[in-house]
């Protein structure tokens, strides 16, 4: 167990180092840090002194080591555009994105499982055919068009829900939440649905496939022979056994949800990390770009690590060959 965890940890650290190298290259070589810090009037000699003092003339290896040292302390420099520490900026935007991501993951999980079970239990119904066709169309639609469509129907035509922003937020000290006010709850509905649709179809198709598989097995037939009720068979026996892969996929997809939030946040003007990243790409705000890259990579690596360890705990078969990666 311990050896397995250590090996996975080492792999994660390697991936993080690789991403850090990319982030460092972006940070250091895209644009000149000095030119973006000083005005036009600064003399060349002064620029040279600054360069020296900031250590930009040191060997690249030392600079990279320093970059990693700073990153470990959560230090990514100052945003060129907003003149604030990057870490502070990202942390202040994080709650909005996380609330959105978790809300949409919940929607995707609940509706995905319900629809998946339904389509598996009634494979010949025309409702199933409709759901499957809709899911195919849903997958090929770009996220931003889904968002715009929802805005048009529910905000412009019906006027039920707000089309942008987070509504009123409550400050809990270190976490600004929108989930405690009515306007905040109303505001999160449309973006969460938009963000969830892709995962929803994924989970639905997965549950359906797994259920169809499980329903054919011997122990289900035996349960029928024992005279158990349909409900007990379908939910107590069949669904329970499909949940492990479903929860894994939902967990692994949480990282993608956070990254896909870039698009959704732009459509709904949601003040999260994603919209911060988009504006920094537009104006080439290099420190924010580098820090966001590191942040997303960390989220992905952590989720992968947790899922792998959970797998190891749940599924004893993996222990034989030392735990091949589940990804």
């Amino acid at each position: 167990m311990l050896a397995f965890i250590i090996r996975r940890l080492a792999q994660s650290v390697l991936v993080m180092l690789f991403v850090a190298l990319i982030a460092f290259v972006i940070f250091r070589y895209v644009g000149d840090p000095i030119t973006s810090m000083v005005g036009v009037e600064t003399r060349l000699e002064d620029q040279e002194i600054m360069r020296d003092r900031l250590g930009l003339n040191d060997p690249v290896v030392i600079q990279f080591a320093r970059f990693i040292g700073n990153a470990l302390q959560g230090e990514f420099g100052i945003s060129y555009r907003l003149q604030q520490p990057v870490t502070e900026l990202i942390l202040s935007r994080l709650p909005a994105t996380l609330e959105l991501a978790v809300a949409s993951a919940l929607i995707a999980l609940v509706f995905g499982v319900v629809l998946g079970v339904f389509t598996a239990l009634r494979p010949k119904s025309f409702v199933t055919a409709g759901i499957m066709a809709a899911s195919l169309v849903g997958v090929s639609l770009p996220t931003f068009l889904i968002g715009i469509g929802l805005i048009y129907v529910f905000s412009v035509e019906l006027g039920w829900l707000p089309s942008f922003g987070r509504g009123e937020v409550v400050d809990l000290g270190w976490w600004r939440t929108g989930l405690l006010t009515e306007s905040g709850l109303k505001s999160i509905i449309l973006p969460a649905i938009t963000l969830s649709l892709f995962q929803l179809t994924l989970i639905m198709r997965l549950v359906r496939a797994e259920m169809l598989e499980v329903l054919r097995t011997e122990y289900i037939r035996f349960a029928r022979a024992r005279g158990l009720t349909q409900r007990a068979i379908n939910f107590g026996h069949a669904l329970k056994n499909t949940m492990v892969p479903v929860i894994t996929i939902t967990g692994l997809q949480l990282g993608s949800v956070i990254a896909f939030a870039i698009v959704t946040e732009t459509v709904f003007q949601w003040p999260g990390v994603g919209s911060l990243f988009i504006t920094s790409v537009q104006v080439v705000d290099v420190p924010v770009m580098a820090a966001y890259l590191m942040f997303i990579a960390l989220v992905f690596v952590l989720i992968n690590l947790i899922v792998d360890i959970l797998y190891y705990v749940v599924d004893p078969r993996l222990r034989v060959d030392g735990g091949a990666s589940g990804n």
Partner: protein
Amino acid sequence: MSMTETPPRPPATPQAPPRPESRLRRFLDSDIFYSWKRSPVTILATVTALTLILIAILAPWIAPYDPFNPASLNLMDGFTPPVSQGPFSENWFLMGADNQGRDVLSTIMYGSRVSLFVGFMATMFAMVLGVGLGLTAGYNGGMIDAVIMRIADIQLSFPAILIALLIFGVARGMIPASHQESMAIWVLILAIGLSNWAQFARTVRGATMVEREKDYVSAARIMGVHPILILLRHILPNVLGPVLVIGTIGLALAIIEEATLSFLGVGVPPTQPSLGTLIRIGQQYLFSGEWWILFFPAVTLILLALSVNLLGDWLRDALNPKLR
């Protein structure tokens, strides 16, 4: 995709039956054409995709207006609703006019031209890069294989859009401001292509590792054929089937990715709007009721992505009946 090497034919003997079968005849008799004929959805998707592509290619000749010639624009035409004027009047707009008085139909024609160009070029780039790296990794194995596939693994675990955004941002920082407008389209192609190569590499590598062990490859190797020649002439034709499938689906993904980037405002320059840019513009007028500026480009994008996607799905089933 059976292009196995045939030995040089012996001189034709008088008994050899004549083979009048033309290439067309052979194609019409093939399994692929049969499965195409049998699927109405696929026929519809093919017709839709080909029509849209044809319209995009012919845009400069068939578009009713030239939307990018300032001389032909009239701001007074701005926000004209669709078919509000008689068809014989001076300023007749089938799909209405946008905020600057540009004919929406014409901007869509030119816009799909940009979208398709970027999509095709990016997919080609990803295909060449991915197939090349996949062949190299699969044939050589060892260290090269490990490095290439590790990078592909890492990249595949991040969404393509995020990688494209990063590459775009980096390229923007490297290119001097004076060239940004003219280079933007190529930067976009580079970004989308680089974010999609890993799929090709992974598939081709797997297929190459299978082919590598077969006798015809050993034979070629023993005959002293250069490894690069073995890869290109012998192995490549045999792994092209899945590449074609991934390429088609990749084209749909690339078109959507381009539209998303342009919608986010980091894609093509506003002087050369793609479908995504048009949707971005149209979104601003949704609240004031000018729905057609958004609606028609969006429908075009959906039709384009959906039809190419369906073609890819069909191709996958047709080339690999086991995978149903």
